């Protein structure tokens, strides 16, 4: 049971006008797995997240969550089934403090509750888990980027997901912050047993955290293998550094 895939995509196509953002893209991710998603800018990584979370719908292909077809479902339904995401450019609810930001995800998320007071207590626990409890009553505008990224993660976790989509949660952080953030991702995997897909440019994060990596280029999957194999894959090197470096 635990070995079957939680989230799968088959032959997903998505174009914006004449631009093919994704073509014939397939993937799968299982519970307890951390799947890395790399690729140069504009290779279709965030588009994939937007398709999974229902903000966009694919032109063709199919996305399945625990065997159910969610390809054309609306974002709130997909989220309530247990697919949570963060945004690359942080999008906190600015006029609400951190507790409220997270508590809203608790009440509306998978197996949501209706008591705001209970949700606030739960939200506080999640803020504690993500290392933000000392700022619980602060507003997002008072936080530094590192903490805002943590808030994105906290909010996604609060909706009690089975699949967590992390969109560049390490971008813009310094090396020390990256290390603590990687620890957080590990801790999430261990504690919540979720399937994680993470988009990342920070290679240190990819190499240490991911069990498997998919490389994308111009919307096409280059390879799907272990982090080491992907890093040495000639196609991947060509996409990032140019043909000259991909020799032998």
């Amino acid at each position, binding site marked *: 049971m635990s070995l079957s895939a939680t989230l799968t995509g088959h032959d997903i196509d998505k174009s914006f006008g004449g631009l093919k953002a994704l073509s014939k893209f397939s993937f799968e991710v299982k519970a307890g797995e951390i799947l890395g998603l790399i690729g140069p800018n504009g290779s279709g990584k965030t588009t994939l997240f937007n398709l999974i*979370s*229902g*903000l966009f719908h694919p032109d063709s292909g199919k996305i399945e969550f625990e065997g159910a077809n969610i390809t054309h479902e*609306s*974002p*709130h*339904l997909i*989220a*309530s089934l247990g697919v*949570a*995401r963060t*945004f690359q450019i942080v*999008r906190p*609810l*600015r*006029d*609400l403090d951190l507790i*409220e930001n997270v*508590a*809203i*995800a608790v*009440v*509306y*998320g*998978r197996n*949501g*509750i*209706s*008591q*705001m007071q209970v*949700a606030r207590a739960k939200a*506080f626990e999640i803020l504690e888990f993500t290392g933000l409890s000392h700022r*619980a*009553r602060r507003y997002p505008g008072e936080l530094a980027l590192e903490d805002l990224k943590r808030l994105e993660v906290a*909010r996604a976790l609060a*909706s009690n997901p089975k699949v967590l989509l992390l969109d560049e949660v390490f971008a813009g952080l310094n090396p020390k912050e990256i290390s603590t953030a990687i620890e957080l991702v590990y801790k999430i995997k261990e504690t919540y047993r979720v399937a994680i897909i993470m988009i990342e440019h920070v290679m240190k994060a990819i190499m240490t955290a991911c069990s498997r990596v998919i490389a994308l280029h111009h919307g096409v999957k280059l390879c799907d293998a272990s982090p080491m194999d992907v890093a040495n894959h000639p196609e991947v090197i060509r996409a990032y550094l140019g043909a000259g470096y991909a020799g032998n």
Partner: protein
Amino acid sequence: MKSDQFSSTNSNRLYQMIIPIVLVGLALFPFSEPPVYFISFVFWIFLYVCLSSSWNLIGGYAGYLSFGHVAFFGIGAYATAMFGKIFSLSVSLTLLGTIPAGLIASLIAIIVGYPCLRLRGPYFAVITLCFAFVSQLTVKNLEILGGADGLWLKTMDVSVEINRTIFYELMLALTSVTVLVSFLVGRSKFGAGLRAIKEDEEVAQTMAVNAPRLKITAFALSAFFPGVAGGIYACYLSYIHPDVVFDVNMSILQVLMALFGGASSWIGPVVGAVSLTVVNEGLSTFVKAELARIIYGCLFIVVIVFMPNGILEFFSRRTKRIDN
């Protein structure tokens, strides 16, 4: 964290003490035999508290600025009047029609809201304003509703004082319920979802907030109370006219009152409606009419420029800063 919870229970206790006293005081006010003018004046305050509080459900909590809310007031007024006319009922029985009138307003809100709530920001504001104009013109041109002549209702066979007192108490009851609903929504899961929609609808959706359903529920709820209020108002005036009960100024005034007090809480519209009605009345009484308009306008400019989140938030942020 702990001190926060403590202070919030303290203020809750304060509310629990003060609110019943205020309500009982207001309910007893007409029996102290004040001039009839004051009873009517407070009736108007209640009406505006009711209108701006119910507007606040969609406009303040969810951030969908409806500029056509007077339409629901007008629909309620006409629905109640027709109810009384068709069954040729006495005034007190006609007043029973205010509840179905409110439900009709809600139903129309659902029908209108379904397409309109897909629009955001200024587009939603403009289309709701258009909706108010269209409903006014429709009523004006329907002979069955009295057209441009308006509609007469029956009057109560009692003295002016008693008549005013009855409507005063009715409006007080409706306003109390409206404010209570606004208060409860603000604290609930529903209200939290609306706030998330106001902040960032797309993010709210990815947090599993069913935005379309929440918005339409809020819109329908925020149309119900103006519908009932319109019905009470129709019986109060005993004559309604499209230019009066669909008056766009009323739409704009309820928006301004909510924004003036602070649209993010239940108390904001209450404070906004009370203070603006009092200021407006005071100015018209004690200052020359032309000058009064200018002062009133300048007051709005000052509030919008210096206190964009309303007077309440302005002062509470001030005190917070001092605390820190």
